[in-house]
Protein backbone atom coordinates (compact mmCIF):
# COMPACT_ATOMS: atom_id res chain seq x y z
CA UNK A 1 0.00 0.00 0.00
CA UNK A 2 1.62 3.29 -1.03
CA UNK A 3 0.46 5.82 1.51
CA UNK A 4 3.45 8.10 1.79
CA UNK A 5 3.03 11.61 0.46
CA UNK A 6 5.93 12.43 -1.86
CA UNK A 7 7.15 15.96 -2.31
CA UNK A 8 10.18 17.59 -3.89
CA UNK A 9 12.68 18.24 -1.14
CA UNK A 10 15.12 21.13 -1.26
CA UNK A 11 18.25 20.90 0.91
CA UNK A 12 16.81 23.10 3.64
CA UNK A 13 13.16 23.79 4.22
CA UNK A 14 11.76 27.19 5.11
CA UNK A 15 9.33 27.63 8.01
CA UNK A 16 6.55 28.15 5.48
CA UNK A 17 7.39 24.87 3.73
CA UNK A 18 7.51 23.04 7.05
CA UNK A 19 4.16 24.50 8.10
CA UNK A 20 2.59 23.05 4.95
CA UNK A 21 3.67 19.49 5.71
CA UNK A 22 3.95 19.57 9.50
CA UNK A 23 0.72 17.71 10.30
CA UNK A 24 1.38 15.14 7.57
CA UNK A 25 4.84 14.65 9.08
CA UNK A 26 3.45 14.16 12.59
CA UNK A 27 0.97 11.63 11.19
CA UNK A 28 3.89 9.62 9.79
CA UNK A 29 2.59 9.98 6.23
CA UNK A 30 5.56 11.78 4.61
CA UNK A 31 8.16 9.97 2.54
CA UNK A 32 11.47 9.36 4.35
CA UNK A 33 13.40 12.06 2.53
CA UNK A 34 10.93 14.85 3.29
CA UNK A 35 10.40 13.57 6.82
CA UNK A 36 14.10 13.78 7.63
CA UNK A 37 14.31 17.31 6.15
CA UNK A 38 11.35 18.35 8.33
CA UNK A 39 12.85 16.67 11.41
CA UNK A 40 16.12 18.51 10.81
CA UNK A 41 14.28 21.83 10.56
CA UNK A 42 12.32 21.13 13.75
CA UNK A 43 15.56 20.45 15.63
CA UNK A 44 16.92 23.87 14.73
CA UNK A 45 13.86 26.12 14.60
CA UNK A 46 12.32 26.91 17.97
CA UNK A 47 9.12 28.37 16.54
CA UNK A 48 8.38 25.36 14.32
CA UNK A 49 9.45 23.03 17.14
CA UNK A 50 6.85 24.61 19.43
CA UNK A 51 4.25 24.39 16.68
CA UNK A 52 5.02 20.68 16.35
CA UNK A 53 4.86 20.20 20.13
CA UNK A 54 1.40 21.80 20.18
CA UNK A 55 0.09 19.42 17.51
CA UNK A 56 1.68 16.44 19.25
CA UNK A 57 -0.04 17.46 22.48
CA UNK A 58 -3.36 17.79 20.65
CA UNK A 59 -2.98 14.39 18.97
CA UNK A 60 -2.12 12.77 22.31
CA UNK A 61 -5.10 14.39 24.01
CA UNK A 62 -7.37 13.16 21.21
CA UNK A 63 -5.97 9.63 21.45
CA UNK A 64 -6.69 9.73 25.21
CA UNK A 65 -10.29 10.72 24.51
CA UNK A 66 -10.80 7.67 22.30
CA UNK A 67 -12.89 5.41 24.50
CA UNK A 68 -11.82 1.77 24.35
CA UNK A 69 -14.22 -0.52 22.56
CA UNK A 70 -16.26 -2.35 25.25
CA UNK A 71 -14.97 -5.89 25.73
CA UNK A 72 -18.54 -7.20 25.60
CA UNK A 73 -18.97 -5.73 22.09
CA UNK A 74 -15.77 -7.37 20.87
CA UNK A 75 -16.81 -10.69 22.39
CA UNK A 76 -20.22 -10.53 20.68
CA UNK A 77 -18.56 -9.72 17.36
CA UNK A 78 -16.10 -12.61 17.71
CA UNK A 79 -19.06 -14.90 18.40
CA UNK A 80 -20.81 -13.47 15.36
CA UNK A 81 -17.79 -14.33 13.18
CA UNK A 82 -17.69 -17.84 14.68
CA UNK A 83 -21.42 -18.16 14.00
CA UNK A 84 -20.92 -17.17 10.35
CA UNK A 85 -18.17 -19.74 10.05
CA UNK A 86 -20.33 -22.45 11.61
CA UNK A 87 -23.63 -21.79 9.86
CA UNK A 88 -22.90 -19.51 6.91
CA UNK A 89 -24.74 -16.28 6.15
CA UNK A 90 -28.32 -17.64 6.02
Amino acid at each position, binding site marked *: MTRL*IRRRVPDHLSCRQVAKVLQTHLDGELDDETASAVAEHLEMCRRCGLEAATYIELKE*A*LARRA*APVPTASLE*RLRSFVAELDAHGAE
Partner: protein
Amino acid sequence: MVPPGDGAADEAFERLVVPELDVLMRVARSLSGNTADAEDLVQETLLRAYRSIERFDGRYPRAWLLTIMRNANINRARRRRPQLQRDPDTAPEEVADDGRSAEDDVVDPVLDAALDDALAALPLVYRRAVELVDMAGLSYREAAEALGVRQGTVMSRLHRGRQRLRERLAATGLEGDRT
Protein backbone atom coordinates in the same frame (compact mmCIF):
# COMPACT_ATOMS: atom_id res chain seq x y z
CA MET B 1 -10.37 -17.13 -2.40
CA VAL B 2 -12.40 -20.25 -1.70
CA PRO B 3 -16.16 -19.70 -1.46
CA PRO B 4 -17.80 -19.34 1.96
CA GLY B 5 -19.10 -22.51 3.54
CA ASP B 6 -15.80 -24.25 2.90
CA GLY B 7 -13.84 -24.98 6.07
CA ALA B 8 -10.59 -23.48 4.80
CA ALA B 9 -12.37 -20.33 3.59
CA ASP B 10 -14.09 -19.93 6.94
CA GLU B 11 -10.78 -20.17 8.71
CA ALA B 12 -9.32 -17.60 6.32
CA PHE B 13 -12.30 -15.30 6.93
CA GLU B 14 -11.89 -15.49 10.69
CA ARG B 15 -8.15 -14.89 10.42
CA LEU B 16 -8.71 -11.83 8.23
CA VAL B 17 -11.46 -10.12 10.16
CA VAL B 18 -10.89 -10.85 13.86
CA PRO B 19 -7.73 -8.66 14.11
CA GLU B 20 -9.71 -5.78 12.56
CA LEU B 21 -12.73 -5.91 14.89
CA ASP B 22 -11.42 -3.25 17.27
CA VAL B 23 -10.63 -0.74 14.55
CA LEU B 24 -13.90 -1.52 12.76
CA MET B 25 -15.79 -0.72 15.96
CA ARG B 26 -13.92 2.56 16.36
CA VAL B 27 -14.69 3.61 12.81
CA ALA B 28 -18.30 2.46 13.10
CA ARG B 29 -18.68 4.48 16.30
CA SER B 30 -17.55 7.57 14.43
CA LEU B 31 -19.85 6.89 11.48
CA SER B 32 -22.92 5.98 13.53
CA GLY B 33 -22.40 8.13 16.61
CA ASN B 34 -22.88 5.49 19.34
CA THR B 35 -21.69 2.06 20.44
CA ALA B 36 -24.99 0.22 19.97
CA ASP B 37 -25.48 1.30 16.35
CA ALA B 38 -21.75 0.80 15.74
CA GLU B 39 -22.01 -2.85 16.72
CA ASP B 40 -24.93 -3.39 14.34
CA LEU B 41 -22.97 -1.69 11.57
CA VAL B 42 -19.94 -3.92 12.18
CA GLN B 43 -22.14 -7.03 12.12
CA GLU B 44 -23.69 -5.89 8.85
CA THR B 45 -20.19 -5.28 7.48
CA LEU B 46 -19.03 -8.75 8.55
CA LEU B 47 -22.06 -10.37 6.95
CA ARG B 48 -21.45 -8.56 3.66
CA ALA B 49 -17.75 -9.37 3.81
CA TYR B 50 -18.50 -13.04 4.41
CA ARG B 51 -20.82 -13.13 1.41
CA SER B 52 -18.35 -11.39 -0.88
CA ILE B 53 -15.11 -13.04 0.22
CA GLU B 54 -14.82 -14.86 -3.12
CA ARG B 55 -14.24 -11.50 -4.77
CA PHE B 56 -11.60 -10.41 -2.25
CA ASP B 57 -8.01 -10.80 -3.45
CA GLY B 58 -6.60 -11.26 0.06
CA ARG B 59 -4.66 -7.97 0.11
CA TYR B 60 -5.31 -5.14 2.58
CA PRO B 61 -8.23 -6.65 4.52
CA ARG B 62 -8.70 -3.47 6.52
CA ALA B 63 -9.21 -1.33 3.39
CA TRP B 64 -11.57 -3.98 2.00
CA LEU B 65 -13.63 -4.05 5.20
CA LEU B 66 -13.73 -0.25 5.46
CA THR B 67 -15.10 0.02 1.92
CA ILE B 68 -17.78 -2.54 2.75
CA MET B 69 -18.60 -0.65 5.95
CA ARG B 70 -18.96 2.62 4.07
CA ASN B 71 -21.48 1.06 1.68
CA ALA B 72 -23.31 -0.69 4.50
CA ASN B 73 -23.57 2.60 6.36
CA ILE B 74 -25.03 4.35 3.32
CA ASN B 75 -27.70 1.65 3.10
CA ARG B 76 -28.39 1.84 6.83
CA ALA B 77 -29.05 5.53 6.52
CA ARG B 78 -31.77 4.68 4.00
CA ARG B 79 -33.45 1.97 6.05
CA ARG B 80 -33.15 0.94 9.66
CA ARG B 81 -32.30 -2.75 9.96
CA PRO B 82 -33.50 -4.99 12.77
CA GLN B 83 -30.82 -5.67 15.37
CA LEU B 84 -28.88 -8.76 14.43
CA GLN B 85 -27.59 -10.34 17.57
CA ARG B 86 -27.71 -8.10 20.59
CA ASP B 87 -29.19 -9.51 23.74
CA PRO B 88 -31.98 -7.08 24.69
CA ASP B 89 -31.57 -7.88 28.39
CA THR B 90 -28.01 -6.63 28.54
CA ALA B 91 -28.00 -3.94 25.85
CA PRO B 92 -29.03 -0.87 27.89
CA GLU B 93 -26.20 -1.23 30.42
CA GLU B 94 -23.61 -1.78 27.75
CA VAL B 95 -24.77 1.16 25.71
CA ALA B 96 -24.16 3.35 28.72
CA ASP B 97 -20.72 1.79 29.23
CA ASP B 98 -18.34 3.44 26.79
CA GLY B 99 -15.46 1.38 28.13
CA ARG B 100 -13.74 4.35 29.74
CA SER B 101 -12.51 3.76 33.27
CA ALA B 102 -12.50 6.34 36.02
CA GLU B 103 -8.70 6.47 35.71
CA ASP B 104 -8.96 7.54 32.08
CA ASP B 105 -10.87 10.61 33.18
CA VAL B 106 -8.31 12.01 35.60
CA VAL B 107 -5.31 12.49 33.29
CA ASP B 108 -6.20 16.09 32.56
CA PRO B 109 -9.91 16.51 33.14
CA VAL B 110 -10.00 20.21 32.29
CA LEU B 111 -8.23 19.82 28.94
CA ASP B 112 -10.21 16.68 28.13
CA ALA B 113 -13.56 18.31 28.90
CA ALA B 114 -12.61 21.35 26.79
CA LEU B 115 -11.52 19.01 24.00
CA ASP B 116 -14.87 17.20 24.10
CA ASP B 117 -16.65 20.53 23.72
CA ALA B 118 -14.33 21.59 20.92
CA LEU B 119 -14.86 18.28 19.10
CA ALA B 120 -18.62 18.52 19.47
CA ALA B 121 -18.51 22.01 17.96
CA LEU B 122 -16.56 20.90 14.86
CA PRO B 123 -18.45 20.56 11.57
CA LEU B 124 -19.21 16.86 11.03
CA VAL B 125 -16.86 16.36 8.06
CA TYR B 126 -13.91 17.71 10.07
CA ARG B 127 -14.87 15.78 13.19
CA ARG B 128 -15.06 12.47 11.34
CA ALA B 129 -11.60 12.98 9.81
CA VAL B 130 -10.16 13.74 13.26
CA GLU B 131 -11.97 10.79 14.87
CA LEU B 132 -10.85 8.32 12.21
CA VAL B 133 -7.18 9.33 12.17
CA ASP B 134 -6.45 10.56 15.70
CA MET B 135 -8.93 8.48 17.68
CA ALA B 136 -9.41 5.30 15.58
CA GLY B 137 -5.80 5.24 14.36
CA LEU B 138 -6.47 4.97 10.62
CA SER B 139 -3.95 6.04 7.98
CA TYR B 140 -5.01 8.76 5.51
CA ARG B 141 -5.65 6.10 2.92
CA GLU B 142 -7.76 3.98 5.24
CA ALA B 143 -9.78 7.02 6.34
CA ALA B 144 -10.34 7.86 2.65
CA GLU B 145 -11.70 4.31 2.12
CA ALA B 146 -13.99 4.61 5.13
CA LEU B 147 -15.38 7.97 4.04
CA GLY B 148 -15.46 7.38 0.28
CA VAL B 149 -13.41 10.49 -0.44
CA ARG B 150 -9.95 11.14 -1.85
CA GLN B 151 -6.89 11.02 0.38
CA GLY B 152 -6.27 14.73 -0.23
CA THR B 153 -9.78 15.47 1.05
CA VAL B 154 -9.06 13.54 4.25
CA MET B 155 -5.85 15.51 4.72
CA SER B 156 -7.47 18.86 4.23
CA ARG B 157 -10.44 18.06 6.51
CA LEU B 158 -8.16 16.62 9.17
CA HIS B 159 -5.72 19.52 9.13
CA ARG B 160 -8.47 22.12 9.19
CA GLY B 161 -10.27 20.22 11.92
CA ARG B 162 -7.18 20.16 14.12
CA GLN B 163 -6.55 23.84 13.40
CA ARG B 164 -10.08 24.64 14.58
CA LEU B 165 -9.62 22.52 17.70
CA ARG B 166 -6.45 24.45 18.49
CA GLU B 167 -8.16 27.77 18.02
CA ARG B 168 -11.02 26.76 20.27
CA LEU B 169 -8.72 25.40 22.96
CA ALA B 170 -6.56 28.54 22.75
CA ALA B 171 -9.71 30.59 23.25
CA THR B 172 -10.27 28.73 26.53
CA GLY B 173 -6.66 29.42 27.51
CA LEU B 174 -5.61 25.78 27.33
CA GLU B 175 -3.54 25.38 24.20
CA GLY B 176 -2.06 27.00 21.13
CA ASP B 177 -0.63 30.16 22.73
CA ARG B 178 2.84 28.92 23.51
CA THR B 179 4.90 31.23 21.33
